[in-house]
């Protein structure tokens, strides 16, 4: 066959031979289906599983009876032992023990339900259809309680999620409080409120978990980002040594941050597999995922930005009320990422960011592609565009005046980050050039003078983000083994979910060794094959695992040379390595292929743990939009994404991820949102017909471009990639719409910019202009500009949550 697939992953995935969890055929496997809370908040009065027991095919149905003394459920096979609560995510400081203490997340609800979709009971049957029949037969009685689904509602004190405890589970600040005198004496202060709406990560494959017991061991297949962590956590909840559990991540249908934790469904499924002595699987369906999978973003923000008349930034303040969901286990401290990145790419001398993590009656917030950095970039960049408008400055020029210049790196920010390297102006310049900035500015001005033309706007967003992870999680396992047949096996502790690791890492190791990539094979995502590992999240795999594999490969060369030198009784410096062959400048000359050396001297394997450091990718995104103010629709005419991820190991993969990420960013800006009914239950009755993921019809012309500023923190020079579109694209688009509408109040535009939101903002903007014109004919524009005063405050932060009349898309 002459055809060569571009990626190693491609052949199986294109021919139907991929192996996702639900594809794995284990004889006798049972299916688990969960009975979930239909209400957002309530007292659980009773759970009656007995009707399920008589449903054909049902093996058993269980609630949390052993924990609470609720009426007993059918137990046709075995008792369900007391389920331990779900362990909190302490890694990367996503949660803390203090936040969780007294607020335990039960694996199955005991006496209270705190979010819609919370698991109450489980039914296990011979197949999925029968398990769903059984679940439908389970009787649940809940006395509803008032629910709080916004931070404002949860903070007003009428709804308490945990009796006697605050709804604020965690507080944090970065930087120091800013003296009021700074704000009083500044030439301009912009104040605004923003809502970073709740998003559903929505990988195409929902969560999937298969547990197969054999003897005293358990093998788990799971679509997961961190197999070694899942093994540790399963060992903890089962009370087993980790060595008895093997976690395998087969092909994974995407994660985007949503698949790195342990969830109640995993604990129950593993527990039942062990208790029943039979394979059990749980394959989440989409409606379940929309209700009970983790969500991203969810912040209400207040900002103040002060500048001198010359546009130099003086101070920035960001106050975050983060909606972290019903239990503080998964992401209560995630908003610290936003606070720490509040400084952005600017030299602002004073920056202060505060976080209140507020419990609400919703499923939990957790990292979703960008994970705290989009929220930081969005708040700052929207405010920068408004500041430029107030100062009458070109938004690009305002940013250029304030960038941290390349010679100032490493740069310690007031919010506690040490930026490794950057050339922010280079990314901005490339974005403006790629866009044709001046040409679009002329077109915008032309349309402003033409009442018949649809208004056009240009928006910029300059971002800096963090990749690699947080202290304690900046290391990764990388191993390289030479085989007697001349091939090389690379092992790494990451686990791919579509990021092309097999292709990229095999090539990286092959390049380092000087071998044909066909001689190198990657093994990852299997705790039985890889001794330790951290995983794939925080844009860390290329940066940290890549550097680990590169170092392991170099070490392998050194060890091979030492072996050959010993074999040939020569000093090491006399032995050279070239393209997998060892040679000695001896008399007579000696030479051996790597495979021959292994055959002669025994196994040659390097297992390495690389300790990395954070890096800070950056870039500029620019959008041009056209707004139909009568319909409220937004048409993105052009999007430019310039990202700098340092050295790109696989530029094709980086390009693909940048594009996919940008389209997810378009989704946040314009389409995706979760409306709630009055009782606090998400209103998504038609699934993905209601939660609007972008289709090809929503994809504008996009230019992806790159600058390259290597990180000095690893020899490889790679920073993280793939999250940029979710960070830079949303504020670029929203800024463009604000520019088109000549909006005086940024708070009028809260994501997603549905036709309803845009129509109302356009009307408000137009009314303000008319009122100003009536007051001072001929000076309408100036009057409108200062209409809110230098210290004007914007409102409407909660509007997007309830005002989403999603009647149409933007085209």
């Amino acid at each position, binding site marked *: 066959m002459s055809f060569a697939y571009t990626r190693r992953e491609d052949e199986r995935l294109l*021919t139907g031979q991929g192996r996702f969890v*639900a594809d794995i055929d284990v004889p006798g496997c049972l299916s688990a289906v969960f009975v979930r809370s239909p209400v957002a908040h309530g007292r659980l009065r009773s759970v009656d599983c007995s009707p399920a027991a008589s449903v054909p095919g049902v093996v058993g149905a269980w609630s949390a009876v052993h924990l609470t003394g609720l009426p007993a459920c059918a137990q046709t096979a075995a008792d369900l032992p007391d389920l331990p609560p779900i362990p909190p995510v302490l890694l990367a400081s996503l949660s803390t023990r203090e936040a969780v203490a007294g607020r335990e997340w039960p694996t199955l609800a005991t006496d209270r339900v705190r979010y819609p979709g919370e698991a109450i009971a489980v039914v296990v049957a011979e197949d999925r259809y029968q398990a769903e029949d059984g679940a439908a037969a389970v009787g649940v009685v809940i006395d509803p309680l008032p629910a709080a689904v916004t931070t404002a509602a949860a903070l007003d004190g009428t709804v308490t999620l945990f009796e006697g405890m605050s709804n604020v589970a965690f507080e944090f600040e970065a930087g120091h409080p800013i003296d009021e005198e700074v704000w009083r004496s500044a030439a301009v202060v912009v104040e605004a409120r923003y809502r970073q709406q709740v998003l559903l990560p929505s990988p*195409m*494959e*929902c969560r999937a978990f298969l547990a197969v017991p054999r003897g005293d061991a358990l093998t788990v297949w799971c679509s997961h980002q961190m197999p070694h962590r899942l093994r540790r956590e399963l060992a903890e909840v089962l009370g087993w040594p980790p060595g008895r559990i093997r976690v395998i991540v087969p092909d994974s249908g995407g994660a985007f941050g949503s698949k790195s934790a342990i969830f109640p469904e995993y604990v129950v499924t593993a527990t039942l597999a062990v208790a029943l002595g039979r394979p059990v699987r749980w394959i989440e*369906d989409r409606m379940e995922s929309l209700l009970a999978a983790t969500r991203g973003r969810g912040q209400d923000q207040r900002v103040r930005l002060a500048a001198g008349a010359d546009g130099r930034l003086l101070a920035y303040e960001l106050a975050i009320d983060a909606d972290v969901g019903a239990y503080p286990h998964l992401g209560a401290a995630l908003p610290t990422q936003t606070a720490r990145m509040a400084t952005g790419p600017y030299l602002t001398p004073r920056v202060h960011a505060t976080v209140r993590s507020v419990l609400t009656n919703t499923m939990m917030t957790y990292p979703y592609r960008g994970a705290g950095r989009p929220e930081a970039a969005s708040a700052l960049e929207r405010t920068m565009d408004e500041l430029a408008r107030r100062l009458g400055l070109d938004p690009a020029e305002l940013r250029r005046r304030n960038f941290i210049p390349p010679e100032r790196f490493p740069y310690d920010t007031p919010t506690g980050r040490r930026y490794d390297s950057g050339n922010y102006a280079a990314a901005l310049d490339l974005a403006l050039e790629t866009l044709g900035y001046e040409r679009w500015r002329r077109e915008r001005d032309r349309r402003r003078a033409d009442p018949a033309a649809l208004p056009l706007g240009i928006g910029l967003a300059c971002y800096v983000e963090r990749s690699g992870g947080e202290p304690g999680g900046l290391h990764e396992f990388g191993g390289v083994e030479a085989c007697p047949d001349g091939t090389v096996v690379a092992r790494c502790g990451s686990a791919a979910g579509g990021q092309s690791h097999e292709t990229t890492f095999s090539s990286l190791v092959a390049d380092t060794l000087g071998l044909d990539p066909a001689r190198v094979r990657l093994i990852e995502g299997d705790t039985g094959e890889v001794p330790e590992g951290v995983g794939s999240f925080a844009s860390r795999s290329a940066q940290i695992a890549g550097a680990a594999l590169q170092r392991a490969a170099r070490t392998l060369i050194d060890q091979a040379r030492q072996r050959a030198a010993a074999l040939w009784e020569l000093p090491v410096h006399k032995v050279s390595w070239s393209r997998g062959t060892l040679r000695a400048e001896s008399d007579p000359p000696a030479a051996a292929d790597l495979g021959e050396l292994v055959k002669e001297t025994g196994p040659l394997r390097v297992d390495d743990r690389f300790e990395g450091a954070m890096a800070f990718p950056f870039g500029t995104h620019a959008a041009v939009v056209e707004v139909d103010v009568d319909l409220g629709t937004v048409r993105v005419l052009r999007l430019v994404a310039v990202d700098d991820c340092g050295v790109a190991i696989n530029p094709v993969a980086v390009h693909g991820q940048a594009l996919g990420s940008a389209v997810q960013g378009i989704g946040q800006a314009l389409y995706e949102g979760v409306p709630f009914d009055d009782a606090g239950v998400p209103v998504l009755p038609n699934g993905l017909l209601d939660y609007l993921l972008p289709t090809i019809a929503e994809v504008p012309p996009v230019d992806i471009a790159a600058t390259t500023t290597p990180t000095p923190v690893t020899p490889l020079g790679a920073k993280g990639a793939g999250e940029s579109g979710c960070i830079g694209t949303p504020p670029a688009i929203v800024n463009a719409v604000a520019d088109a509408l000549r909006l005086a109040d940024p708070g009028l535009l809260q994501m997603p910019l549905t036709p309803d939101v845009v129509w109302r903002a356009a009307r408000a903007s137009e009314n303000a202009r008319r009122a100003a014109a009536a007051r001072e004919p001929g000076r309408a524009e100036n009057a409108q500009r200062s209409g809110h005063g230098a210290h004007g405050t914007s409102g409407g932060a909660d509007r997007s949550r309830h005002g989403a009349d999603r009647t149409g898309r933007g085209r």
Partner: protein
Amino acid sequence: MRITLVVNGRDYLLDVEPRRVLADVLREDCHLTGTHLGCELGVCGACTVLLDGEAVRSCLLLAVQCDGRPIRTVEGLASPDGRPHPLQEAFSAEHALQCGFCTPGWLMLAAGALESDPALADDPERLAALLGSNLCRCTGYTPIYRAVLRAAGRPPAEPPA
């Protein structure tokens, strides 16, 4: 119910419950797991297969509705000699898949459309409208559009603005 599913030219004699959807029977009874379920409500298109040559959502059809009718799945896309289908080659060449979960649905959607209407590749608006029927969360769609054009022997181009 006893039915015969004719999948990729092979007969599968099955005894299925009338309520079972085609996707589940293909996956679990025929062991053809290349067809994936992304939403089970007919929205995402990951489960698209060809029935009588036409693209259908296999999550919205009962297997018993398909008794005796020819079905084609991703497993039947390549030539019997193993040579990849032009769409398979083009998807790889254009980086039109990342995680690959939705990919079989795209391949079957495009295969059915190009076979019944080759001129589709010359009409950007109609092609984009067709590809608007499926969801992908990784690629950003443009590579998929380019791949379909490439498979049809046209120069890859961007979707219409």
